């Protein structure tokens, strides 16, 4: 840093794409997968969005009233190349550092290393995402209701009948919040867990839109937005600062298989399904963390806010008796777990997720369902891929040998194991379970700032 300017002071909220800073908490989404067929026309389409001439890209700037829709745009590396930017913004030169290798190589090329194998292999992904170099733009449309989603899609000319000039629609993904027991949209995912509770508190992000003070350490903004201070070379030209990367993931959830597994464990090993569900996740399905309430999900004093649900750090549970080392949330955010080497807070991800597919019940059991996930960071390799490779699909980092994340890991009955410590010296091992989450698609994309969008695409 020079002139004592902190990276936080360089954050320009009204220039940063909004989904990086805040979850919109909207009920429905449509994520479009687009291909550039003619660069000049496609640039005009993007420029119109950046300048608000059609719909407007949503920034992290202050809202007076919550809008009826939000819109964000991400580009794959191949997309930036297909758009034939001027030499002053040549993608190869702009992202000339190891930090950007994952982005440049793309999600398909990197997929096997993060556990996308067998039925999760890129060759098995949905058609719109399975061909390398084909996906260029991801357009993320969020709305409060279905009608708005349809109207805004029409305004974007992204429908079955309409397509903007210079753009081909490869496909789209619809997502919607699942209804809670009260019939209102909820934060619950198909497995029945409440999701999206733990998000990093980012230094420089407004608390109003970000995360409440929950006793968790603040994470530098350069871990999520390209700013000075991170362990990477900044992109060149500097106009690309204030941008972020994200791994977009289509994650199919095998709820029927999960529920059958729970029943089987109850019959064979006498394990209560709700206890096993909580041990695998690290939280009870209602979001109450095992580290605070290991015996029961009934903790009304915690359910008042996400801050309460996040105010723990495993420091009083070194052996994992309350919350197993191998549980999903302890692996992917080890907090102050003393068993994890190094500085786990350097690997945090901002997560934006929403379910797709119909809610699970006996009639719909065989339908496809899952989660549309965005994992936002400044380093796809150092954060997203690190978490997937070292923490989700390995166990060595916490002395669990070959064990993998019981929910998200690439588990197969032949070798899957999940250890549940029952005391400081004893544990129960659950073996032979299948993979419950299958990757159905992915793309690595870059979310430029509004300034960068105008710089790159204004004609």
């Amino acid at each position: 840093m020079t002139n004592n300017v902190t990276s936080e002071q360089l954050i320009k909220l009204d220039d940063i794409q909004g989904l990086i800073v805040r979850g919109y908490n909207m009920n429905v989404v449509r994520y479009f997968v687009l291909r550039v067929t003619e660069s000049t026309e496609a640039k005009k389409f993007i420029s119109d969005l950046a300048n608000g001439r059609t719909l407007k890209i949503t920034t992290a700037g202050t809202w007076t009233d919550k809008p009826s829709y939000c819109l964000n745009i991400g580009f794959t590396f191949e997309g930036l190349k297909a758009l034939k930017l001027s030499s002053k913004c040549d993608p190869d030169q702009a992202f000339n550092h190891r930090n950007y290798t994952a982005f440049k190589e793309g999600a398909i090329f990197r997929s096997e290393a993060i556990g996308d194998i067998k039925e999760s292999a890129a060759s098995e992904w949905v058609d719109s995402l399975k061909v390398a170099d084909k996906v260029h733009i991801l357009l993320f449309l969020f709305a409060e209701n279905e009608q708005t989603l349809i109207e805004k899609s029409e305004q974007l000319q992204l429908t079955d009948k309409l397509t903007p000039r210079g753009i081909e629609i490869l496909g789209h993904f619809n997502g919607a919040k699942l209804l809670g027991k009260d019939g209102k949209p909820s934060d619950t995912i198909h497995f029945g867990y409440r999701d999206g509770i733990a998000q990093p508190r980012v230094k420089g992000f407004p608390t109003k839109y970000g995360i409440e003070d929950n006793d968790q350490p603040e994470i530098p903004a350069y871990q999520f937005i390209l700013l000075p201070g991170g362990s990477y070379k900044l992109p060149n030209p500097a106009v690309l600062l204030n941008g972020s990367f994200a791994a977009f993931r289509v994650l199919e959830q095998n709820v029927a298989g999960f529920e059958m597994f729970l029943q089987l464990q109850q019959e064979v090993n006498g394990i209560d399904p709700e206890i096993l569900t909580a041990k695998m996740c690290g939280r009870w399905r209602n979001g109450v963390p095992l580290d605070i309430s290991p015996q029961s999900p009934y903790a009304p004093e915690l359910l008042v806010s996400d801050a309460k649900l996040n105010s723990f750090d495993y420091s009083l549970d070194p052996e994992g008796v309350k919350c197993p080392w191998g549980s999903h949330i302890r692996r992917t955010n080890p907090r102050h777990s003393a068993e994890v080497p190094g500085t786990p807070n350097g690997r945090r991800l901002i997560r934006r997720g929403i379910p797709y597919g119909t809610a699970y019940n006996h009639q719909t059991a065989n339908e496809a369902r899952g989660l549309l996930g965005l994992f936002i960071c400044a380093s796809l390799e150092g954060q997203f891929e690190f978490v997937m490779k070292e923490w989700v699909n390995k166990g060595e980092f916490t002395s669990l040998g070959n064990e993998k994340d019981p929910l998200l890991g690439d588990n197969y009955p032949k070798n899957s194991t999940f250890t549940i410590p029952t005391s400081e010296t004893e544990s129960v091992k659950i073996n032979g379970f299948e993979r419950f989450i299958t990757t159905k698609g992915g793309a690595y994309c870059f979310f430029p700032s509004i300034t960068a969008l105008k710089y790159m695409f204004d004609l």
Partner: protein
Amino acid sequence: MSNTIRQQPLSFVAPIVIDDQDPALHYETLRALISSDKVNGNGLNAVATVHFANFIFLEKTTAANGKEYYKKLALFTFYDGDFETYVKDFVENVGALFDSLLVHLENGKSLIPVRENEDDFVKYIKNYDQPVARWYSAYPDKIVNKITSHPVQGVMYYDTDRPTK
């Protein structure tokens, strides 16, 4: 928990740059730097994977002008995990320290700043890491975070700080 070895040694030994006019120049600068407050342990505390770190000068010699100096700098440590896997932590927390050391080490200048040359930095460290014939650990399954409190509060010492009889 298994008894997997969770630490490993680094025995980094690299030649110090020899200045034609004053062969002892870089050694002396390096020694002053390592003795200064700039090397204070804060960065290593933040990395939280380093058990011990000893800076040692090796191969004492005498220049034509009569000045004594050392030809190599050694950094012997025991650390957790795999260096390449956790290089991000090193670069972020002790990158500036390595930058200041590398000025005075052979083949080091081209790596500065290490945050922009992570791959080459890893190769450099591996290249000068000496093979260990055998090593001992009293607690092979323990990592720094397991042994000490959060945050790590390690301290740098001088040779003269050692207790004497």
